[in-house]
């Protein structure tokens, strides 16, 4: 009897969780990652992971409210059932991580401590210092190392995913390349899980790691996998500027009491400490009295952008605002936020415990991703309920299987049978805007919950009768030939000195791509600018077709790897720009200054992008919003301006 195998591409939280779950279920896993899995981008997640907990529950919070917050936070763009299931699973996931040894911060009595996070009025975010993502991925990395030492998981580190092998309409393996030896080969698998994260590098400088090119997702997209909501790109309100990247300053800084402000006087030359309370404009607190500094990210970003760019009120006249923690006890800050404060101090040279941080928004996360399916769970009310009143009793309990059916083979499966998308590369959970500390949750949830789906697919569907092992080699050879040809074309004429021509230099093309996408497709979008962007992308594609490398080495050729990714990033960029152009409304992270209102009738729909031949098309397909009725997403906004001081100091 032939042995089934599963390939997991990506060694971040989603990939590792999937590998553990699938290996545990008895199917060996081949785990591919461009970096040693422990160095995946998940390590950068700082703030925490959301879940209903006993303390919040006894204050009226519930898994259902977590679900409601996530839908509302995502501006009603997500299909609602998967989100419900994720929220219901959250407490179980925290328990599991706890058992794996994640050093969650503790209360005096020894229970898991909680902090406040964006989009919620309850403390529901579990955290391990300010490096929660790092701690979570380490816990999963350890479990995978355990399985690897038992031979149940085989890691292919420094191997890059190149293309899915699709045969008879289902995914039966991948082609991958060892980025040290440059060997390209095909791997058979009965199911392939893509867990390849986001695409921050499309925007040049972002909060993402240098590996987050989105190339893997783009390759699937080019191979016929559908892409959902490409235009939904989260710009994080608080990041530290740098020459190589924009380093994240976690939302937890605001969750722990950090206040965002600018001087009420434009270009005030005084040092922040010399500016009295009455002359500081705490614009988030004044505009959003209930949520204050912890309004969701898209809102905070737009407000900061507006204050700096439109009103010219940035600190010292620059594009920056203060994120102030200096009113908090320094020891408390060290205990709760040590990791991120250290990053700021290291890279900026000022101690944020004593000097307010200067921050500005940066591209952070892709809500969009490969389009996936699911099987609805058992909760199906006759009519959708109105928005949940915060703190009121939940209409349902949190039993498993109400949102999604546990083990249904199509959960988080793309339009290509056997090809799954987990984690950030799955478009499913965050709608038009992700709430802080929900990303870690969605990654692990996908791995654990949908890992079972993968096992069932192998057992009960096509691979059960016709395992990949027994398939003819033709499809695999064809993909290897295709990728080898691609490599040959890129290395053609490669030699030192080629870099001198900027029009065909991949690094220059990459930089221009990033600059263009940041200018056109981030905080504020307009039709004219997007069209300009499309023209620029066309130019870049034309130049990429002529790209010339400065390195012709057949060994560890990094320039080649980068250049190849640029080709894929360009395709993804086109989808992002096209989605942004076609979605003629404003929703969540997608803000069109020429269409400022949300338009539920036409656009409470998934942007479905397809790539065929050489063209990308989008259409809008209905979502399932049968659980909660959409409402205006205001977070209780009020008017405020720098010249009209608030009557009383805003609540912290």
């Amino acid at each position, binding site marked *: 009897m032939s042995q089934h195998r599963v390939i997991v591409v990506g060694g971040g939280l989603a990939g590792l969780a999937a590998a553990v779950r699938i290996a545990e279920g008895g199917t060996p896993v081949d785990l591919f990652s461009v970096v040693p899995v422990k160095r995946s981008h998940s390590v950068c997640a700082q703030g925490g992971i959301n879940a209903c907990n006993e303390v919040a529950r006894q204050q009226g919070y519930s898994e259902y409210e977590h679900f409601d917050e996530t839908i509302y936070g995502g501006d009603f763009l997500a299909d609602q059932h998967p989100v419900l299931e994720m929220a219901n699973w959250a407490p179980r996931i925290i328990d599991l991580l706890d058992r794996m040894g994640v050093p969650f911060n503790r209360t005096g009595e020894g229970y898991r401590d909680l902090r406040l996070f964006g989009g919620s009025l309850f403390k529901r975010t579990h955290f391990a210092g300010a490096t929660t993502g790092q701690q979570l991925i380490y816990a999963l990395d350890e479990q995978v190392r355990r399985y690897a*030492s038992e031979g149940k998981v085989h890691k292919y580190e420094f191997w890059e995913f190149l293309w899915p092998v699709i045969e008879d309409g289902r995914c039966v393996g991948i082609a991958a390349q060892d980025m040290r030896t440059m060997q390209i080969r095909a791997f058979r698998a009965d199911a392939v899980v893509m867990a390849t994260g986001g695409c921050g590098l499309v925007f040049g400088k972002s909060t993402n790691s240098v590996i987050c090119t989105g190339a893997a997702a783009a390759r699937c997209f080019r191979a016929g996998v559908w892409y959902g909501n490409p235009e939904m790109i989260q710009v994080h309100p608080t990041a530290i500027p740098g020459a190589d990247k924009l380093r994240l300053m976690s939302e937890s800084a605001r969750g722990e009491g950090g206040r965002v402000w600018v001087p009420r006087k434009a270009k005030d030359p005084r040092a922040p400490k010399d500016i009295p309370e009455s002359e500081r404009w705490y614009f988030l607190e004044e505009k959003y009295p209930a949520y204050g500094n912890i309004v969701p990210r898209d809102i905070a970003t737009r407000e900061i952008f507006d204050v700096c760019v439109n009103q010219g009120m940035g600190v010292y006249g620059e594009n920056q605002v203060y994120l102030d923690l200096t009113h908090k006890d320094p020891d408390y800050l060290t205990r709760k936020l040590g990791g991120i404060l250290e990053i700021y101090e290291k890279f900026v040279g000022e101690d944020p415990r004593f000097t307010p941080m200067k921050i500005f928004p940066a591209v952070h996360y892709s809500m969009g991703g490969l389009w996936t399916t699911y099987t609805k769970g058992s909760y199906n009310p006759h009519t959708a309920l109105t928005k949940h009143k915060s703190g009121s009793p939940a209409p349902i309990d949190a039993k498993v299987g109400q949102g999604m059916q546990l083990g249904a083979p199509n959960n988080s499966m793309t339009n290509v049978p056997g090809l799954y998308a987990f984690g950030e590369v799955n478009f499913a959970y965050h709608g038009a805007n992700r709430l802080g500390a929900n990303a870690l949750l969605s990654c692990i949830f996908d791995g654990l919950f949908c890992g079972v789906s993968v096992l069932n697919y192998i057992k009960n569907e096509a691979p059960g009768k016709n395992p990949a092992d027994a398939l003819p080699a033709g499809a695999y050879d064809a993909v290897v030939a295709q990728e080898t040809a691609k490599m040959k074309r890129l290395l053609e004429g490669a030699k030192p000195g080629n870099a001198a021509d900027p029009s065909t230099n991949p690094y220059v093309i990459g930089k221009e791509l990033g600059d263009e996408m940041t200018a056109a497709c981030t905080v504020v979008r307009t039709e004219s600018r997007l069209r300009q962007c499309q023209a620029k992308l066309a130019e870049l594609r034309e130049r990429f077709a002529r790209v010339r490398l400065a390195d012709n080495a057949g060994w560890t050729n990094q320039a080649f790897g980068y250049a190849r990714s640029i080709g894929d990033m360009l395709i993804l960029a086109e989808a992002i720009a096209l989605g942004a152009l076609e979605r003629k409304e404003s929703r969540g992270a997608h803000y069109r200054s020429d269409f400022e209102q949300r338009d539920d009738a036409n656009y409470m729909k998934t942007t479905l992008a397809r790539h065929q031949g050489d063209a990308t098309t989008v259409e809008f397909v209905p979502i399932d919003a049968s659980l909660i009725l959409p409402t205006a997403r205001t977070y209780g906004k009020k008017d405020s301006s720098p010249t009209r001081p608030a009557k009383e100091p805003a609540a912290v």
Partner: protein
Amino acid sequence: MVSCRSAGLLRPGGTTGIHHVMQSATASKESFFQRHYFLFRRLHSLTGILPIGVFLINHLLTNSSVAWGALALREKTVDAPWWVHGAEYFWREVRWLNTQIPNLLLIEIALWGSILFHSVFGVYYAMTGSVNTARYAYQGNWRYRLQRISGYIGILFIFYHVATLRWGWTFLVPGGTVWSQEFAASTLALTLRGGSSGVTAAGLAVSLAYFIGVTLLVFHFANGLWTAAITWGLTISEASQRRWGYACTGLGTVLMIMGWMSLFTFAAADPAKLREMEERMTQKQAMVSASPIAR
């Protein structure tokens, strides 16, 4: 041009996924040494303290009595300089050690066995390390390096010390002085001075060798005592390691002063006067021994 380090694990076409962990490699394949690796390492640590360290303390205490013995001597029968009185006290100490310690031979075997073991394994272990004080010039790293240097030089010194004073390899001693147990003080003084006619250049060289040898061995012991506390898990926290460091520095300083005091005193003493004292003491002892009461 230096050659690039080869990456043996990077075989073209191979993968470098996790290597299966060897389940405590099959016992039959392991050598006796490998099977008892921990025991050997800890014995190496232990022997440095017991008996070698304890002997070192005792040895330096006895030898340094030449410098402070005048203060401890109960009755001074002759009128002489302080160092002659000190040497008299030293004579008595040596005699006491040689006659009163039970099973001296067994103790010596244990001691020499320990030194041999500690040396052989010490050199073997030291060979596994490398030197990087140029790049990482931390105090701890320098002590790591010095511990190994002092070990190597210490072995040579002990060999010379024993070969010349015990085994009578007089060709290594300037002036060909034969060290003898009854005349330990005077012959040692002659050795360190390079003969009976004042201090010679060769004598100075021997004294210098002794100075370096004693200094390094005392450092080796004190620093070894400090690391042993970590090895055995007695000092855990950085603070406790620092405190124990002070203690070891204190002990090392005291031992160092004792070693230097004995060296300077012996090297500065007039061998003739010492010889005079030794003959007087030997005679006196013979008389006491001959007396029926003494039996």
